[in-house]
């Protein structure tokens, strides 16, 4: 067949004509958002590092999603600005029964969801029952925070922490749990447990999470959530990667000061900075610590969050039997020059860790002193233990940056040279974070490794309970040690103390024991993550839990 020379242009012209015909006229609203009031902008534009997964926080586990939903949703328990402590939010007060298994929440009156539904005890119980009743797909995957806190779902109700919710009266909800725990009520401040409109949840088939290939499919509701917060979702422009929220004019509390809140998704770190300096965004999260100075020099405010994390060097006595000896573990600790590490490699405000919890946690033991840098003592301890010149397979992750570990390789290099200085032969191993590092840590393939944790809520259990609690399953393989069983039993006992004061004392004592007698791993440092905003942006309070809210923020022109 011959193709005439004119055929191609004709085909092209036809396609173009069809495209044109199919195109709608501009449906852009012409009303230009003219200046709101005086010298304040009517829009806040904040740079986000990633796209929100969805807008139903119950199925989210990532900070990018929570940053958005936090502006739109509230829970029974809130977080006091600038701290990790809880405060009343949709619940005005709460009270535990003597055995710590029954929690009564008095609810705030006059709160409405955006769709006009009233917030009351029935709505609270509907929400909890909805979270409890997940299908297998949701339970295994996206409902991660419920799985973490409550243990299991309705299909395995006997093993769940949550045992039911009843509406005692219109404004009083009672939640029953299977055992007393330090997680209650503080864990209810998690964004995942936000209250959403029962009507909208029903209408949007909110629980219908499906398996789609090797990923998850979310129901319609997740794109169109209804909460009680100061902002509501306007649109998510996926092509231009912006999420736009608008003020909820029917908000029960003080209304948001700025009418519009835009999250612009800019995955590249240095680009976020350039956007800020070009003035096209008003702030962004997690600036690279190396940029802090430059950012301040060019007239921005770096808001440093109180640290709520820990970087540690994990040790596996099951893999390297020499590590079973406390003297060896202590020797490693004395060998590390953590002062220099913190000064030269970690962001401003970072501190040398004295224990496995940060000082913002109830149960932090302020009397503990850090293991000092003492290479001579390290050498003599190694000699005493007969481990002079021991070999240590010590690993660090590549392709990752965490708030507690901005540049793993540099931190590692500093620690490695300290260890080598006391005669330890370090076997350098690195694997990509998602490419086998975490898997190998879990399966116990390294003698020693760098890892850390960012806390979710204010309970020591969220830190040391996670690290050393599960005797059979924890990364530190404490089951291979003499103290492991006692430690995990003690941790469980402390978690179950109902009285707050007693519980705090028990945890302080445990922290001391962990550091002085057990030393399952080496707590290295706490690094504060930061936010950066332009000088024009006022009213943002940095939160250790990265739970900043924008309702009181203004941006001057």
């Amino acid at each position, binding site marked *: 067949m011959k193709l005439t020379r004119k055929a191609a242009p004709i085909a092209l012209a036809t396609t173009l004509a069809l495209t044109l015909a199919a195109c709608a006229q501009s449906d852009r609203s012409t009303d230009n958002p003219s200046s709101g009031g005086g010298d304040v902008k009517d829009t806040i534009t904040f740079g986000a590092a990633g796209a929100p997964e969805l807008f139903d926080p119950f199925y989210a586990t990532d900070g990018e999603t929570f940053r958005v939903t936090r502006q739109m949703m509230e829970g029974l328990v809130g977080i006091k600005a600038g701290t990790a402590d809880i405060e009343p939010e949709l619940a005005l007060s709460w009270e535990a029964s003597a055995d710590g298994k029954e929690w009564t929440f008095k609810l705030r009156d006059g709160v409405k969801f955006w769709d006009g539904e009233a917030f009351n005890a029935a709505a609270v119980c509907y929400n909890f029952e909805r979270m409890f009743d997940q299908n297998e797909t949701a339970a295994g995957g996206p409902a991660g925070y419920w799985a973490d806190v409550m243990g299991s779902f309705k299909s395995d109700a006997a093993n769940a922490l949550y045992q039911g919710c009843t509406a005692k009266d219109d404004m009083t909800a009672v939640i029953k749990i299977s055992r007393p725990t330090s997680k209650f009520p503080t864990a209810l401040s998690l964004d995942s447990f936000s209250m959403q409109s029962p009507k909208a949840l029903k209408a949007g088939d909110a629980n219908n999470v499906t398996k*789609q290939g090797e990923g998850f499919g979310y129901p319609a509701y997740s794109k169109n959530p209804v909460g009680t917060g100061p902002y509501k979702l306007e649109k998510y422009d996926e092509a231009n990667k912006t999420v736009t929220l608008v003020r909820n004019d029917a908000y029960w509390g003080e209304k948001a000061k700025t009418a519009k809140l835009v999250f612009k998704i800019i995955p590249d770190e240095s*680009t976020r900075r350039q956007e800020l300096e070009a003035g096209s965004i008003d702030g962004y999260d997690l600036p690279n610590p190396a940029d802090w100075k430059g950012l301040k020099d060019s007239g921005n405010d770096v808001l440093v969050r109180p640290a709520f994390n820990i970087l540690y060097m994990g040790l596996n006595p099951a893999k390297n039997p020499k590590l079973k000896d406390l003297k060896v573990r202590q020797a490693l600790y004395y060998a590390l020059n953590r002062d220099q590490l913190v000064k030269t490699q970690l962001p401003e405000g970072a501190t040398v860790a004295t224990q496995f919890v940060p000082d913002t946690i109830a149960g932090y033991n302020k009397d503990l002193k850090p293991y000092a840098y003492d290479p001579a003592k390290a050498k003599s301890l190694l000699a005493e233990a007969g481990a002079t010149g021991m070999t240590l397979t010590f690993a660090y992750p590549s392709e990752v940056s965490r708030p507690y570990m901005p540049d793993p390789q540099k931190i590692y290099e500093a620690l490695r040279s300290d260890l080598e200085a006391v005669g330890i032969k370090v076997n350098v191993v690195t*694997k990509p974070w*998602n490419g086998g590092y975490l898997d190998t840590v879990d399966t116990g393939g390294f003698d020693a490794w760098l890892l850390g944790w960012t806390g979710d809520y204010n309970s020591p259990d969220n830190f040391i309970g996670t690290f050393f609690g599960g005797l059979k*399953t924890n990364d530190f393989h404490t089951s291979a040690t003499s103290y492991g069983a006692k430690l995990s039993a003690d941790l469980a006992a402390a978690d179950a103390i109902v009285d707050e004061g007693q519980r705090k004392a028990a945890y302080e004592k445990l922290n001391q024991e962990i550091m002085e007698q057990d030393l399952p791993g080496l707590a290295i440092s706490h690094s504060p993550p930061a936010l950066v905003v332009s000088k024009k942006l006022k009213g943002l309070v940095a939160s250790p839990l990265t739970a900043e809210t924008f309702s009181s923020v203004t941006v001057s022109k």
Partner: protein
Amino acid sequence: MLRFILRRLLQMVGVVFVLSLLVFLWLRSLPGGTVSAILGEKATPARRAALEKALGLDQPLYVQYWEFAKRAATGQFGSSTGVQPGVDAMQVFIQRFPATLELSFFALLFAIALGIPLGYMAARRRASWFDNLSVVGSLIGVAVPVFFLAFLLKYFFAINLHWLPVSGRQDSSIDATRVTDFFVLDGILTREWDAAWDALKHLLLPSLALATIPFAVIFRITRASVLDVMDEDYVRTAESKGLTNKVIRGRHILRNALLPVVTTIGLQTGGLLVGAVLTERVFSWGGIGEAVAVAFTRRDYAVLQVCILMAAITFVIVNLLVDIAYAVIDPRVRTR
């Protein structure tokens, strides 16, 4: 011709099938995986097992592939887990493909608009300072790593001089109507001129950075090919016949010299995709290149599978189009 096109399309089906199997097996042979990427520090053995079960990753490989192939045959590639979690991978591709296509189109446009005239001029003035300078210039262009060049452009024109935007495809303050997701085209279609103009400004730097390598290639091929053609008998004949310079240039030299250039342009598309991975990253472009890079570090199987397969299909189709274009330009190919 029709039969030729049909045969090529059939071949494509075979290639895509083999490639899908290879990509599937390759991704699953990578260390680590989706489960670690989703759970991060929270990965406990129990949570891992539950998630693997929920995702069907606990099944034997052949079962997984069978499930995948069944779904893929109906156009369902599964949900993304890392790039845009919960969004269908094909949807992710469709959303982002216009961005990459728009960028590649403008890059190619720059490369052609600069490469062909410069190549022609260099050949006509062979061994002049202009020729030497442009040849060495094109070599330098190739010696500079693409991402570094992208950074330099950004540093000078966007950050220091503030002439052009730093990143992205359009300013977020512009409330543009989306029709085709090609932002410039959208602006023109809806007569939102400010939107089109803004999108153009965003396009300039990344497409320039991306254009360097195709430009150098097109320049060199044009130059070499014009040099060859200028030696041909028919050009000398035309000259001796006393035809005007304009006629000789247009009908004899350029037309014949363009044949290899057209092939080259077609062959550049795959390379553009690679350059796009780097350029898109520097300019936060939000296209396929960026998606592939993110999908890779987060082990987003669904998105990787779709993007690689679609890239291969695009590549095959473009080569087919090139062959057709060849037939249109060169009458000899047609009669064969």
